[in-house]
């Protein structure tokens, strides 16, 4: 049992051990980071022809290939780092959720056509 785990009783009287919330918070914040990364790459690809061409990792799919694969890579990397950092900590999910909602909001804005097309050089 780690220092952040707590033994309690459930509603039926059975002994149960609480797991730390750190890994949950890590996963939630990482999801927000992945969403924000997708928004960032989408807007950058629109703003810069160089970035758009670089993100074209597959000719058939176009720049969407690089944007999505890179966002997924950022998400997984962020998750791994945050998980390693928070895995034994009692980080409340409420704070993680607030951070994630803000980041997801940025991701939604970044992937919203009216927003990212405003950065188009054309």
């Amino acid at each position, binding site marked *: 049992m780690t220092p952040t785990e707590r033994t309690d009783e459930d509603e039926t009287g059975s002994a149960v051990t609480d*797991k730390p919330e750190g890994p949950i918070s890590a*996963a939630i914040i990482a999801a927000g980071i992945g969403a924000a990364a*997708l928004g960032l790459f989408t807007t950058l690809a629109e703003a810069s022809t160089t970035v758009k061409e670089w993100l074209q990792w597959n000719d058939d799919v*176009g720049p969407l290939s690089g944007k999505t694969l890179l966002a997924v890579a950022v998400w997984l990397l962020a998750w791994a780092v945050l998980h390693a950092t928070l895995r034994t900590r009692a980080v409340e999910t409420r704070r993680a*959720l607030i951070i994630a909602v803000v980041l997801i909001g940025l991701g939604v804005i970044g*992937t919203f056509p009216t927003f990212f097309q405003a950065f188009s050089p054309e």
Partner: protein
Amino acid sequence: MSFTDREWWALIHGMVLGAFFLLAFAGGLAELYGLKPTLVTRAGVVAKMRRVKVGVTAMAVASWLTVITGTWIVYPWYREDVASSPRSELLANPDTADWHEFGMEWKEHIAWLSPILATTVAFVVVYYSTNLIRHDRVRRTALGLFVLAFAFAVVAGAFGAFITKIAPVQ
């Protein structure tokens, strides 16, 4: 009465996986919502937890399969640089250009938020398991993210259906 290979893949992407996704969401939502101490008995907790885990994991799998088939199989046909591709047809007519410039542009990006969030919820449920019954705050957080994952998929799915109605992949 037959479908081309492209139409089959569009069907698999939109209808088969879409139906699987809806089913998994409905099941996962109902089970996750019902994960309260007052609604769970000692005898039923094992079966209930199994159903919750299956529901949220199935939705994560369905959303990954949907975005992967959509982006890597159907989307290249949609955006082919030929006059008969759906993208070319939509852009050729000022009355339909917004279906690509707004609808498809939003759909192809926002859809990817759904599997990321659905996977997060699946992890939370599998990791925290029965702890979710006693920790309402965590359960509500998972529920909120689960609904958000569904909402993003709805945006993508709705635009996909509308665009397919106007300019189908053939």
